[in-house]
């Protein structure tokens, strides 16, 4: 419901928009005195505007569940939403079980492990599996792969894509039960084409790219997963200003969470591990974990 649909005078509308109020929900939690101050109008005018706004809102959302604060959702609705969201399978039933069905959309998942354990492989697998069509229980979406280390090998991605297609045709055969060779129309080349691959070489490029993703995602609405491999590599050098590093990293993490929620996609961050010196012992810990305070975190170990 937009401001321009409200039955108020043009000058009032203009003042609302220039003050930054472009939607009805933004008027829901402001008091009339604050609004009067912001718009530089009298308090009675502000009260009038709010009354008109709540009236329009009320008539429109009469069948929705009532909420105390506009824009809030009941926990029941959230549970329902979450259950209806699709997951991206990791091609391993055990791993899917641990993750609660697979990689969740609208969430940021961080996966860490020592070098050589299979983080990049998992990243490529997820970028391929997100493309599994809806008929086979997948999301049928595209993937963005951000490579900061140069460990993405096209030939390996091609192998994984081929195996995925083979899996799908076997599943198809199974379903049909008539043992006919059912041709899947997808080719490994098509799968590779649907992975948007970005290679970045410095932390400034990384930040610039994450800022750019907003625009990219609004142009490519079918992207359903962003894989960043690995997210902390460029930040582990010596920074002259450590506070800057902290700010930059937390800003980046926040942006990624926002992207995940806004565009309903999954974000997978692959991270390295480092040794943590506690009082008397050493432990393996995810790199820069205090800065990247995120959602579900998984550690891979042999």
């Amino acid at each position, binding site marked *: 419901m937009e401001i321009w649909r409200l039955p108020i005078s043009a000058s009032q509308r203009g003042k609302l928009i220039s003050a930054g109020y472009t939607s009805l929900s933004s008027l829901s939690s402001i008091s009339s005195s604050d609004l009067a101050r912001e718009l530089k109008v009298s308090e009675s005018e502000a009260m009038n505007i709010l009354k008109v706004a709540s009236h329009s809102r009320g008539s429109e959302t009469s069948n929705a569940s009532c909420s105390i604060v506009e824009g809030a959702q009941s926990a029941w609705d959230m549970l329902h939403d979450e259950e209806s969201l699709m997951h991206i399978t990791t091609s391993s039933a055990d791993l899917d079980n641990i993750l609660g069905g697979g990689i969740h959309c609208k969430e940021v998942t961080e996966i860490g492990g020592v070098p050589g*354990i299979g983080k990049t492989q998992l990243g490529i697998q997820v970028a391929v599996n997100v493309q599994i069509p809806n008929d086979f229980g997948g999301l049928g979406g595209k993937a963005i792969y951000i490579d900061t280390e140069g460990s993405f090998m*096209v030939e390996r991605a091609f192998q994984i894509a081929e195996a995925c297609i083979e899996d799908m045709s076997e599943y198809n055969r199974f379903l049909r039960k008539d043992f006919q060779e059912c041709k899947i129309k997808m080719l490994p080349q098509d799968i590779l084409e649907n992975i948007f691959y970005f290679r970045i070489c410095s932390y400034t490029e990384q930040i610039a790219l994450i800022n750019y993703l907003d625009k990219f995602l609004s142009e490519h609405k079918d992207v359903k997963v962003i894989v960043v491999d690995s997210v902390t590599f*460029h930040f582990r*050098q010596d920074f002259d200003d450590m506070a800057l590093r902290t700010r930059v990293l937390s800003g980046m993490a926040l942006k990624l969470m926002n992207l995940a929620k806004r565009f309903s996609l999954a974000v997978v961050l692959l991270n390295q*591990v480092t*040794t943590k*010196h506690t009082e008397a012992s050493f432990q393996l810990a995810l790199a820069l974990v205090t800065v990247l305070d995120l959602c579900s975190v998984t550690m891979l170990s042999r």
Partner: protein
Amino acid sequence: MTPQSLLQLTSQKCTTGCPILDRLLYGGIPCDSITEIVAESGSGKTQICLQLSLHAQLPVSHGGLAASSLYLHTEFPFPFRRLHQLCLSFRSSNAHHFPVNDNPCDRIFVQSVHTADHLLEIMSKTDPFIENSKNQVPVRLIVIDSIAALFRSDFDNTPVELKRRSSLFFKISSKLKALAKRFNLAVLVTNQVVDLVGPNEGINGLRIGNLVCLHTSGRRVCPALGLAWANCVNSRLFLSRNEEVIREENEKSNGQSCDFVKKKMRKLYVVFAPHLPESSCEFEITREGLFGVER
């Protein structure tokens, strides 16, 4: 910022000079990536590096990169005589690719490196150097032999120094990867090993970071420079050598008899790589170079 098209991205590889090793590595050492060779001293790391510097000069149709190489060495002296020996056999087996008076050694640029900061300095000068080399035979291979020597003596064992050491690793690796991407270079780095004494828990478990255990000369070892450096390389290869007692059948005049002979068994393992499965193969070092052995 536009995404790269994956279908046009092909990873070029540099042949090692032996078809058996190439088969293990799915073509050779990949470009635009850092490959690390870990081994104890005397296992053949420098041999592979020299061999690769020569074979990088082969034309692309024969698996090479048609390129010259930059060899940064940290251990002295540089094995000039061995390089010359390898060069002669390389020339004789690949005579049709090179003109008569040509010396492949001319296309290997050798530079000695003393400290980690010296390495960073050299790398900042490498950019224009490689840019200029595009006019003659472009540089497409950088070898650092060995990276461990730069770090093993300059740093104390305090947390502050170790942290400084770690951030140097990431700085060097980041610069190398940027160079590799910009000029499509293959980077080969060699590393040493440290011994693992005691059980697999505690500090030992941490050092190997729940990775596979490596064995050479009957000892349990792990690569030097720790977990931080392991995060900086893309692929890791391990060379092991063991003395094995083999029963050899000998035909003698008074019938057959067996001799127990000590043989040096050398193996090349793929520890981790994004495009290779875990595999291994046996090899031997001869006057002509390092070659895989098919058994």
